């Protein structure tokens, strides 16, 4: 399992080998399946309930986002990125805006940076909440879903008040922000912090020490740090395998270097560790929020950016730590108003590659748990 | 409670049993055979009830219909039906089969005609109430526990069979 060299793709063309009198089962999970988080199709080969191998079939939600970028100006493409990882739209926007800013060689003013961090961290919490709810639902605990959705609503309310949209926010602009904060924004965030802190304990009370939860998650979908790096897996999945890699610390962007926070890591790289890492990450996000909301400086929210953006010829790669992992944008400029090529490195897509490795030798029920713990969003996988 | 329409029920249940038995051996689909066998076993349990042996009937339902047949189905369900449909169902040794059946039938008739003294005349009346207690008394009772030894030997045999099954099924113990 841990040696990545033993990993070979599933051969679906060879005839099924009989086992006693029972054949191996090949079943299709998805694209219409309640636990594949959208339209992921997984072809499972089973021996009884044991998974011999699986193959992901993707592309059911492909919209050609990267190609669309080539026919849009830099500003016009900005809202499109929100539609990739639609549960963490703010992070997507942040990554894109910062990448173009890097290309243009401008920097957003400090006040804009602070507000960006606040909104991004709020979005991280919202994304983790959605992950927790659906992941617990997949494992059979239905109640956490409603708790997390109740609390996620508070975050969405702040988004709605700030920019009018709840999900695909399009909150940031290249060079800063379009909107000043509304009256009482800071108070709303502070209220949310004090509201949300006990709620994490509430989630943990339901799950963290629940015997069934422990049995369902401990030792399930184990992946080593080495395999993670070999497959390019990032985010909480990588950290749960013991690799201390968080782009907010490793290559600080926005103004994350001004904030104090810890990077949680796990030891065994199983589903429970990933659960714990994300739970602690939520607490750390609250910590960042507290510092950020206390220190919002006064000043402009928009840097000087030309009306018609024509970045100099060149290319740039910029990545941020999205809730699901490293979200990177590689943009090539030919000097015109439209990018020559945009390539997105989506964390969900890359993390999904580890599914086969993590599921081999496990049971069908574990596949569900592992898909949940990878925290994929099909909009981002297929783009 | 006085019995009602005993001959009717006896012949009905026997008919169901025979029919079920025939279906068991004539169906090509193993699952259908198993289900017919369950019908047979249930009819047999009903016959036990008619003999005022509710305990045996209950055990018959729990063990055979509810337990063993479920395990049967469990295995049969995984067999590919397409393949078993193509396979030949009966072997061709008609002569041996007829001879064996005739011998068995002859034995039955011989026992019935010659050994009339073995079968008690008249009807036995069993108390409906206290049947379970009567069974228990025969098995373990302090005064009439005459089947105690046989029961324990049967238990031992079953235990050996269980261990044997585990040993055979498991590659590594």
């Amino acid at each position, binding site marked *: 399992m841990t040696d990545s060299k033993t990993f070979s793709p599933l051969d679906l063309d060879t005839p099924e080998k009989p086992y006693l009198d029972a054949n191996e089962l090949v079943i299709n999970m998805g694209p219409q399946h309640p636990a594949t988080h959208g339209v992921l199709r997984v072809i499972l080969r089973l021996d009884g309930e044991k998974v011999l191998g699986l193959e992901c079939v993707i592309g059911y939600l492909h919209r050609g986002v990267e190609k669309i970028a080539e026919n849009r100006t830099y500003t016009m493409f900005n809202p499109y990125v929100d539609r990739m990882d639609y549960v963490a739209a703010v992070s997507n926007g942040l990554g894109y805006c910062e990448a173009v800013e890097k290309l243009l060689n401008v920097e957003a003013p400090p006040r804009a940076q602070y507000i960006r961090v606040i909104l991004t961290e709020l979005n991280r919490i919202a994304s983790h909440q959605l992950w927790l709810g659906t992941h617990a639902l997949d494992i059979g605990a239905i109640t956490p*879903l*409603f708790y997390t959705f109740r609390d996620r609503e508070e975050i969405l309310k702040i988004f709605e008040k700030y920019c009018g949209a709840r999900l695909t926010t399009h909150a940031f602009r290249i060079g800063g922000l379009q909107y000043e904060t509304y009256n009482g924004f800071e108070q709303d965030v502070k209220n949310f912090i004090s509201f949300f802190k006990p709620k994490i304990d509430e989630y943990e009370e339901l799950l963290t020490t629940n015997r069934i939860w422990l049995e369902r998650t401990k030792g399930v979908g184990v992946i080593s740090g080495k395999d993670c790096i070999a497959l390019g897996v990032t985010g909480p999945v990588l950290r749960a395998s013991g690799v201390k890699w968080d782009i907010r610390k490793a290559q600080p962007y926005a103004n994350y270097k001004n904030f104090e926070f810890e990077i949680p890591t796990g030891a065994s790289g199983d589903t429970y560790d990933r659960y714990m890492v994300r739970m602690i990450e939520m607490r750390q996000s609250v910590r960042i929020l507290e510092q950020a909301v206390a220190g919002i400086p006064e000043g402009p929210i928009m840097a000087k950016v030309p009306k018609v953006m024509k970045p100099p010829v060149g290319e740039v790669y910029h990545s941020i730590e999205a809730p699901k992992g490293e979200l990177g944008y590689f943009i090539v400029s030919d000097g015109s108003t439209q990018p020559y090529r945009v390539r997105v490195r989506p964390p969900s897509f890359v993390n999904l590659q580890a599914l086969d490795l993590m599921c081999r030798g496990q049971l069908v029920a574990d596949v569900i748990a592992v898909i949940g713990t990878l925290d994929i969003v099909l909009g981002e996988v297929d783009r | 409670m006085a019995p009602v329409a005993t001959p009717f029920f006896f012949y009905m249940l026997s008919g169901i049993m025979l029919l079920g038995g025939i279906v068991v051996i004539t169906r090509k689909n193993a699952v259908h055979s198993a289900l017919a066998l369950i019908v047979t076993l249930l009819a047999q349990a009903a016959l036990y009830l008619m003999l005022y042996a*509710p305990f045996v009937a209950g055990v018959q339902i729990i063990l055979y219909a509810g337990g063993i047949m479920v395990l049967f189905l469990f295995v049969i369900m995984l067999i590919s039906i397409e393949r078993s449909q193509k396979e030949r169902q009966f072997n061709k040794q008609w002569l041996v089969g007829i001879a064996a059946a005739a011998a068995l039938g002859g034995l039955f008739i011989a026992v019935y005609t010659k050994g009339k003294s073995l079968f008690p005349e008249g009807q036995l009346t069993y108390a409906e109430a206290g049947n379970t207690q009567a069974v228990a008394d025969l098995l373990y009772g302090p005064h009439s526990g005459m089947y105690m030894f046989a029961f324990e030997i049967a238990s031992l045999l079953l235990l050996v069979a269980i261990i044997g099954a585990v040993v055979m099924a498991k590659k590594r113990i």
Partner: protein
Amino acid sequence: MQELLNYISSYLSSDQTPGGAGNFLWALIYILLVFAGLSVAVIAMNWLERKILAHMQVRLGPMRVGPHGLLQPFADALKLLLKEDIMPDEADKLIFWVAPFIVTLAAFTVFVVVPFGPTHAITDMNIGILFMLGVSSLSVLGIVMAGWASNSHYPLIGALRSSAQMVSYEVAMGLAVVSAILMTSLNQQGTGTLSMIGIVEAQQAQGTWFVFKLFPLGLIAFFIFAVAMVAETNRAPFDLPEAESELTAGFHTEYSGFRWSLFFLAEYSAMIAVSSIAVTLWMGGWLRPFPNALSGSTWNLVFSLFPGITFLFLAGMCFYSTARMPKHPYFRIQTAGLAIFGALLALIALVLFIPAVRVRIQDIYWFCIKVAAFMYLYIWYRGTFPRYRFDQLMKVGWKILLPMGLGVLILTAFFGLWSTTHTNLWHP
């Protein structure tokens, strides 16, 4: 004519169940009453589960059909009956057709021996508990047949899971039941009973519910049964056969409309059935709390008021909700409906306060309220626990519950014998 009247009234003066008295007419009436009551209970359970679960999950649950969604079960039933009945093309037609009926039949038949009171059972069998376990174990067959006949992978896996699960938990369940039956023999004669009524009478005679008998042995046996019965009925956290997130709907994935509703009906009546077994075996069946310690006419009167008070409380809740209904004209009919429903409940409460009714309804009330407590537990489990994985489920069944059941059985036998020979040790 006179004979017929005699036939009808003769049962009323007898002190037996209709089956025991051999009175077919009354047996038929009892059957109809039990099945009508069961259907009402399933309908009520459907509504309550959705409501209680919703309130556990910060939701409101059904609110649209009738006041507080009270008519929702009827709307659902209507919808299911009107739905197209789909049968997969490659399905094994006969088995697909017959499977839901087997499950429903098995789930309903067990109620023949459930004792709602000393005479309130359709019949009392010498092998009562054995009959219940046996017939309810037949429902596995229906599930296996449904899964196999659908000719599809997900239902097949669901059927495999449920057959394995039900067969293995039956073992632990049986052992727990046997240790309770052993306790019925702890009397002067030293003879026990399998009859459901006899088991409750034994608890009455021994002056304690079997949960508290030979403490903590009775409690452990009860615990084993309580776990096994959840697994037997395929409910959370053991709801793997119909694990929604893994197998979509398990063995009944391919079923729709009326046939599906039969599975639903069977599942809920099976839940009620196993809860009745638990109540009969360990919780004193129809006995009211403390029949011996708090005896006397005053206490009898106090406890006989409980049924009326319960309904009065429900009526009060209805009236409270009526007062809280929005005053908008749009809700006029709903408000009136809720008030009428409350008035109906209050009327029932008043009827239950009539002394003649009060005394006769008691047994049934205490039995139903205990079963209702178990049904609430079912809902609570579902709201709280994640789902076990299949191998873990088997581990719990075979490696924890089975040895525990065996141990409890042996210890019960040992201490039971001890307590009858050394009476002073356990019952000074």
